[in-house]
């Protein structure tokens, strides 16, 4: 309980989006009720990045703001998510990171010298993964802040590489600690974010989806670093818009680096985070008693009836798109719910069929068996043309 009071206080101090404390507490209390009596799930760079992939989904926004354990809710609702990183991927990622950072970041230093012209004398290294043997987040964050403040304020030799700094970002009014697997370093009076990923860059080409995910995660770190430095009285220019992505090159595990521009992702993220802070307007439209609490008994068994949970979920509108399958734990639930709607066909189909909500309606329009009201007229013309083409090609009706 004390923790919760502390959180609310931090919220008022760090975000201050609602000067009268009462409204903040109402929102907080509602989010607490939605989550149930469990610890809120913390955001990390991955979940913050995922927010930007489907900005219009109220269900995800509410659940994330409340810190609901979506994985467990989805599983109990009968649609367990296909997620969780493979442990092989995790251990490969860790091994590659350890290799890059081994011996005082020897490999990384080579890359920084090659790609960013880091001067030879700058080789200073600070391990921020623990603060004097203490791995608590508060201690690590305090140490990170202290070292970054010193580096930002003083000359060139006050720190070059910061291994595993712990940053803090306000998300939905709640401070979130980000434990990046990256280093920030000072070069030419700018901090650069370095992201180490274990997917291969083969012949100069990497998997586009993976690079996109890495870029948006790095953007989260850039934003968090800017916020930390901003609290220390530094301008945003102190953090570079370019991040260095370090990946294995070709088929060996020798690391290679590439500089990536994250300005676009930063804009998207900022908009998303601002939206999360307006969560109270989303909550207003929802019934006051709404909760996703699984009502666990003393033995940990879920006692809430499945149908009741599903009904509660259905109250909050979702905006399912096939992209959700890659990033949201609720995806199978929402997909089943969205079955038969044009949204389930993806963004392209949805845009082509503007005004037509269900696939059945689209088929009726294509056959010409239903009248097209004004908003559907354009889509109806398109559908009939498509149906005619199909009939001419295949010789069969829709």
């Amino acid at each position, binding site marked *: 309980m004390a923790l919760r009071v502390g959180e609310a206080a931090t919220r008022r101090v760090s975000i201050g989006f609602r000067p009268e404390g009462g409204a903040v507490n109402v929102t907080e209390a509602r989010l607490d009720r939605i989550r149930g009596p469990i610890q809120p799930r913390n955001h990390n760079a991955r979940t913050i990045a995922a927010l930007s992939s489907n900005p219009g989904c109220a269900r995800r926004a509410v659940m994330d703001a409340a810190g609901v354990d979506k994985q467990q809710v989805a599983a109990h609702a009968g649609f367990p998510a296909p997620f969780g990183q493979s442990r092989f991927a995790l251990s490969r990622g860790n091994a590659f990171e350890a290799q890059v950072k081994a011996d005082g970041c020897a490999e990384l230093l080579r890359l920084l010298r090659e790609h960013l012209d880091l001067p*030879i004398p700058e080789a200073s290294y600070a391990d921020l993964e623990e603060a004097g*043997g*203490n791995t608590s987040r508060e201690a690590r964050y*305090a140490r990170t802040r202290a070292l970054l403040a010193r580096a930002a304020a003083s000359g060139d030799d006050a720190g070059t590489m910061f291994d595993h700094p712990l940053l803090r970002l306000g998300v939905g009014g709640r401070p979130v600690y980000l434990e990046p697997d990256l280093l920030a370093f000072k070069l030419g009076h700018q901090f650069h974010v370095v992201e180490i990923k274990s997917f291969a860059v083969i012949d100069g080409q990497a998997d586009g989806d993976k690079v996109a995910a890495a870029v948006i995660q790095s953007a989260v770190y850039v934003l968090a670093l800017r916020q930390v430095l901003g609290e220390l009285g530094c301008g945003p220019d102190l953090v570079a818009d370019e991040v260095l992505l370090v990946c294995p090159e070709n088929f060996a595990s020798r690391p290679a680096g590439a500089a990536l521009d994250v300005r676009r992702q930063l804009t998207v993220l900022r908009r998303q985070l601002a939206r999360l802070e307006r969560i109270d307007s989303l909550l207003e439209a929802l019934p006051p008693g709404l909760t996703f609490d699984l009502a666990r008994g003393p033995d940990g068994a879920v006692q809430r009836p499945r149908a009741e949970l599903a009904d509660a979920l259905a109250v909050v509108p979702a905006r399912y798109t096939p992209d959700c399958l890659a990033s949201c734990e609720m995806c199978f639930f929402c997909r089943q719910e969205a079955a038969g709607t044009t949204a389930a066909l993806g963004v392209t189909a949805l845009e082509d069929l503007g005004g037509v909500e269900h696939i059945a309606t689209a088929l009726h329009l294509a056959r010409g068996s239903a009248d097209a009201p004004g908003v559907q007229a354009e889509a109806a013309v398109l559908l009939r043309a498509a149906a005619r083409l199909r009939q001419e090609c295949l010789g069969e009706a829709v």
Partner: protein
Amino acid sequence: MVTSIEALEERIESLRGRVRRARLAGDRELAAALRQELRSAEREWDEALEELAGNQPAQNVPPARGEQPASSAPGSPPGGASPAGVAAPGREGTGVAAGGLALPLREQVHQALTLLTVPAAPRLVSLVHEAFFAGAISGARLTSLRRDEERSFRAAPFARPYYLCAALTADLLAPARGVLAVSTWPMERRVIGPLSPRVDFLTAAIQVAESILRVSQPGPGALRLLWRFASNIPGGMTSGGKTNPRRVAGAAEAERGIHADADQAARTDAAQRARAQLNDAQQLFGTRLRGAPRSAAGG
């Protein structure tokens, strides 16, 4: 007799497998008995090899010290001098003659660290041991080593001639993560300032390069290690990707010269603080912050 050497090798392999299985199953008695059998098989193998070598025209093959060939470079072609190519430099004149296999883990680590002369991560310790002594040290066994040493020191301080201890971070005098050091080293060498990881890396490169120069035929492990250093030191390799120990040592020395003064100053300062503020056990194993200062975190 001579033809049986391959049979012996097969027998050694199978015995090793059985030792491992017995050990993992927790059957210590069986494991001990099998190990005895393994030792005698290895002795027989040595004798057989000596016999074979005696039949060959003698070249400059150094005498294969003890059991080393049995464990080093298992992938190398049979016969030939390759196992002996990674023979110990023997510069310490200590228990190396007993061979890597017989040495306890802490002594193997001590050997490698003594060669490097600087605090090093377990992975590097293992690679150095593999390259210059007998066999790799598994990383899993090294994780608990420092804790065991600390327990032993606290139970009976200074009862052993040396302890494998922590390197201390210069600012908080806390144990540096994942780095091993030797207690007999001066405090200045055991503290880690901001530039120390790089300086220690360069010193290790110089030590490895010089050790390779001392060996007539460095093994593949040693050359791989040298390449690892060379590729990450400016000027350590030619543009064609070739390298040699002298070049690596020269390049490392050049870069170390740039960082040395600043690093030394930070280390001397931290070492003075450590000697003044810490007790014996803390000087070896560091201090730890207990409980986060809340005001600092909120700040």
